[in-house]
């Protein structure tokens, strides 16, 4: 499924990605047929609650799924017209860190405690740009300053930094080799609100400077609104709604998306209680035949429970996976 919202080249195209884990004897269906495209310079927000499969999608793109737990992977991931799923490890190592980079969720544990931050930043540089130690260190220092950390701290260890600073270091590592695609997995979830703003600003600034494409994984709609061009709502391992920022935010169509927006407390309204969505996501080891959201959906019908439907086009680049839309559309 190809979009033509921009005239930029297609950078990434994920098609029918499926990932199963094995856990304690049973199979966890983490990702169940996800497809989306990303063009150069675009930023896509992947929204969904915890356990929806967003991190798995990200790790699939990086091809760093845990070997021992991953049972089955299917689908294609085209990056610059090459299928990452078919690539050999050596080729993937060339791409990781230099063309696609990832920023992880928890800055407290994302850095190696026994290496200096300078070493950690320089490692990728040395590896991909084949610089010697001294030059790599210089480059690392520059990177550190770019993310707003004083150059004096180049030889310090991660435990000497606060949470926000650690995240900056992680970003420095990710962007050290100027990747074309940055995947940020909940980069601000573990941080204070004020620091969140700073980190997001940093990401936006760096994107502006270098034109990096971005996949931003988050459960926070506010962050999406601030940073992304496109939005994909993920539920139970599949995309239930996808479109441009305006399309989705102005006209949320999937009951789940509507529920998400409804769950946000409105500053200007005085509401007696919040309306979070009732119920819990389905058990990923026992996914139902029909719509995964049916049990929680206020509009669910028999037919919903009976069959699973595709993403249906609404307008422009806006697609929704819902029988109601199908019927209306």
């Amino acid at each position, binding site marked *: 499924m190809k979009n033509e919202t921009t005239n930029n080249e297609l950078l990434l195209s994920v098609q029918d990605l499926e990932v199963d884990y094995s856990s304690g004897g049973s199979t966890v269906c983490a990702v169940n047929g996800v497809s989306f495209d990303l063009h150069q310079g675009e930023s896509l927000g992947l929204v969904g609650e915890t356990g929806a499969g967003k991190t798995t999608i990200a790790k699939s793109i*990086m091809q760093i799924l845990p070997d021992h737990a991953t049972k089955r992977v299917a689908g294609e991931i085209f990056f610059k017209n090459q299928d990452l799923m078919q690539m050999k490890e050596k080729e993937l190592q060339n791409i990781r860190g230099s063309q696609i980079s990832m920023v*992880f969720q928890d800055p407290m544990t994302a*850095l*190696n*405690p026994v290496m200096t931050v300078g070493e950690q930043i320089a*490692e*990728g540089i040395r590896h991909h740009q084949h610089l010697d130690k001294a030059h790599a260190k210089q480059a690392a220092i520059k990177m550190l300053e770019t993310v707003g*950390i004083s150059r004096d701290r180049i030889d310090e260890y991660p435990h000497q*930094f606060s949470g926000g600073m650690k995240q900056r270091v992680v970003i420095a590592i990710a962007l050290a080799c100027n990747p074309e695609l940055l995947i940020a997995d909940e980069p601000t979830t573990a941080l204070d609100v004020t620091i969140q703003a700073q980190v997001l600003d940093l990401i936006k600034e760096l994107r502006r400077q270098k034109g990096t494409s971005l996949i931003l994984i988050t459960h926070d709609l506010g962050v999406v609104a601030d940073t992304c061009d496109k939005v994909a709502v993920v539920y139970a391992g599949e995309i239930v709604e996808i479109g441009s920022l305006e399309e989705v935010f102005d006209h949320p169509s999937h009951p789940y998306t509507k529920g998400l927006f409804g769950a946000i407390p409105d500053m200007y309204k005085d509401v007696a209680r919040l309306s979070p969505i009732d119920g819990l996501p389905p058990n990923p080891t026992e996914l139902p035949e029909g719509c995964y959201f049916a049990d929680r959906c206020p509009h669910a019908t028999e037919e919903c429970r009976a069959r699973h439907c595709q993403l249906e086009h609404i307008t422009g680049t806006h697609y929704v996976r819902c029988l109601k839309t199908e019927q209306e559309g």
Partner: protein
Amino acid sequence: MLRYIGKRLIQMIPILMVVAILIFTLMYFVPGDPVKIILGNDATPVEVEKVRDELGLNDSYLVQLTDYLKNLVQLNFGDSFFSGLPVRDELMNRFPYTLMLTFCCITCSVIFGVPIGISCALRADKLADRIWMFITLLWSSMPGFWLALLLVLLFSRQLGWLPSIGIGGPEYFILPVLSNSLGSLAGIARQTRASMLEVIRADFISTAKSKGISRREVIWKHALPNALIPIITIIGGGFGMMLGGATITESIFSIPGIGLYMMNGINNRDYPVVRGCILYIAFMFAIIMLITDLVYAFVDPRIKAKYVRAKKKPAKAEPERSEVTC
């Protein structure tokens, strides 16, 4: 860092003093008479009393204790009741053999144990992992005595490749090291596997992988250094234990080390020998623990920071709150 080391060394002195007093008291109250063993079965009680007097064994507890401590601070461990040889000299003579044996055993255990543990961790629950874990379990369950005899029967007796007893060139150490190290090899392999399994699942390993560096580098530069702490603990403990004397191995292969010396001393109630050996063990353990702690600091900068915390300048103090921004 030097201050830390100095502090630890000074702390050792009261510890060793307490050990000395404890072991002295223990031996004092343990029943059994060394003199009859010295003089042999045919000695008359009159002769026995005479020798007891000569050795000062009829003095009161306090008198004997003060004598002992007085000698101790001059580093005089006394003479063996049994052989008459000065204990300190004997310890100095025998220590190198025990040290050599121990050192080789630990090195052998680490060189083979760590890679086995790593490769098992990477192939956790697969066939290779299960096989190796079974083999290591086998090794650690084998009684050292039995294993040593089997090895001697095969390599020395049957094949004639290696000598069975004594000391000399490196070939004399191969069988003793092999029989003594297999047990600790198993322990190190298992601990390495466990530590690595924990570390591999950590987030920073994902970060490392996502940089695109090779798998080997991920394992050896990122995973292993973080998995090392519990492994080092085991190695340190094993080293300390072995330095106390790999008694069985020494006795089978007739290696003149500390283990046999101490065992004979205990059986003969040779008080100076026992006291000297126990103090030696306590001392070695303390040194090994210190070295282990220093290795921790070398491997993990967070631990190093704790040791030198007093010296850190306030400007570099770690900001705990996130109000401070750049």
